[in-house]
């Protein structure tokens, strides 16, 4: 079973502290499934009932995120799925969170992957119950969120299902992530549910000061090279031959062994997708990812013009003559070196 998250918004300090203590004490009674977040986003948001009118949530009361109203009366304000009545007792808190658990599980079960959940808007510019970033939140998948970003770059943080950051992006700076290159590529390949949160001006400024940023092209490359179910980009096709204009920087960019072989093959000659698979001994998916990724770097070109083809051909012939001096020994040598250093193709 997955974790459930709760956040407290707009509560007096002493009330919030008391509720935090109570949640810690009730952890075992709640099945140790609830995590209290210090963030504007969670499965359940506990807010003062008298401030519910400041929040306008689109969608039904039982769609995520759930609003739980802390009130002194029994009347459930519009927009809230339930009331937590003052003074809060442990038994009542457990009962309400168990109800929330059912609703959260039901809402997650209807998630079809790419789903726009209701946005929450705050009308009060001063003493806001919900910060700016709270208003611009979209639950989707990592790949869908990133694709949206490529179409219309905005300042954003993309969170995973646990509300941990996968990466952040500032149009003027690039992207930043605490994940390693391999972890980020793995995330794009597995394509988990994600939350797309636009950043406020203050959040952008704080992030720009605190984090190191990387070239956005690296994010694009990672997106394309790590697709678990790839399709050829519309700019590319199966008919034309493609050639690399320059090598990708494999020192920085995530890649697989087959990508190095494909780069070598496409630098040496123009090939169709299927020819590339044959020459580089790569499968279709790997080759599609490679063509898509190198195209995004601007490193891929359709088959050369007649003049360039002649020049390239002369260079290839010169290489072939040089290589012919040591034909069979080289093949064996290359294979042995690969085995020695574990550099066999993936």
């Amino acid at each position, binding site marked *: 079973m997955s974790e459930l998250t709760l956040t407290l918004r707009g509560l007096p300090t002493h009330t919030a502290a008391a509720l935090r203590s109570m949640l810690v004490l009730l952890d075992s009674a709640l099945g140790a499934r609830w995590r209290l977040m210090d963030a504007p986003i969670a499965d359940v948001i506990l807010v003062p009932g008298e401030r519910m009118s400041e929040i306008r949530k689109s969608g039904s009361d039982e769609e995520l995120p759930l609003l739980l109203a802390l009130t002194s009366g029994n009347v459930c304000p519009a927009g809230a799925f339930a009331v937590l009545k003052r003074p809060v007792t442990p038994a009542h808190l457990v009962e309400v969170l168990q109800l929330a658990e059912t609703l959260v599980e039901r809402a997650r079960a209807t998630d079809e992957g790419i789903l726009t959940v209701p946005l929450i808007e705050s009308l009060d510019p001063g003493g806001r119950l919900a910060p700016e970033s709270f208003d611009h939140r979209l639950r989707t998948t990592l790949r869908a969120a990133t694709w949206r970003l490529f179409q219309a770059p905005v300042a954003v943080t993309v969170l995973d299902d646990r509300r941990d950051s996968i990466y952040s992006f500032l149009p003027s700076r690039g992207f930043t992530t605490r994940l390693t290159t391999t972890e980020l590529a793995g995330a794009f390949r597995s394509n988990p549910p994600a939350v797309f949160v636009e950043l406020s001006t203050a959040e952008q400024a704080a992030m720009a000061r605190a984090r190191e940023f990387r070239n956005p092209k690296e994010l694009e490359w990672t997106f394309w090279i790590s697709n678990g179910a790839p399709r050829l980009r519309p700019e590319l096709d199966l008919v034309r031959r493609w050639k690399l204009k*320059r*090598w990708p*920087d*494999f*020192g*920085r960019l995530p890649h697989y*062994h087959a990508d*190095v*072989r494909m*780069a*070598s*093959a496409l*630098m*040496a*000659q123009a090939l169709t997708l299927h020819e590339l698979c044959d*020459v580089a001994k790569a499968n279709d998916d790997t080759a599609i990812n490679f063509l898509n990724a190198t195209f995004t770097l601007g490193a891929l070109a359709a088959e050369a013009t007649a003049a360039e083809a002649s020049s390239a051909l002369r260079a*290839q012939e010169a*290489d*072939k003559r*040089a*290589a*012919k*001096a*040591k*034909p069979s020994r*080289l*093949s*064996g*040598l*290359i294979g*042995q*070196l*690969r*085995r*020695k*250093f*574990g*550099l066999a193709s993936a």
Partner: protein
Amino acid sequence: MGPYRIVFAGPIGAGKTTAIQALSDIPPISTEVASVEAEAVGKQTTTVAFDLGQVLLENGDLVQLYGAPGQARFDFMWPMISENAIGAVILADNRRPDTIELTVEYVREFAPRITAGNCVVGVGRSDLHPKPGVDAYQDALEAEGFAIPVMEVDIRRKEHTLLLLDVLLARLEATHDGA
């Protein structure tokens, strides 16, 4: 015909000795002495002859790893070192203001002597000295007619040395298979 070789070239402090140590089956033989040039790049010593390592393959064949001396006054040795070389790893040091010019010079010298011009450039110290970037190296090399791989590496990491070797082998395969 003697054993095959892989050559490591580049200026002082670029990481040639480190790269050879990562691959060699024997402790590399190197001649290291203190020198003014070494101190200038923060090293205690520098290689005044060349590093020699070797890779022993399963069939008993040897591949020699040669580190070409970085000082220009030893450039007369480059043709000797390049004999039977199947590839050259040119290591660049991004701390140097003349790093691109030096890299082009090394490629110009070694590429014609190496099987199928099989060279790869590894750019070191980019973490603290991000410019010039890889694109600038490639632009300069392409202007000289060289379309060779250039990548950022940290040569202290063995996997980056292996990446450079992987690229060399892949280029050799592509050229050889096309014959």
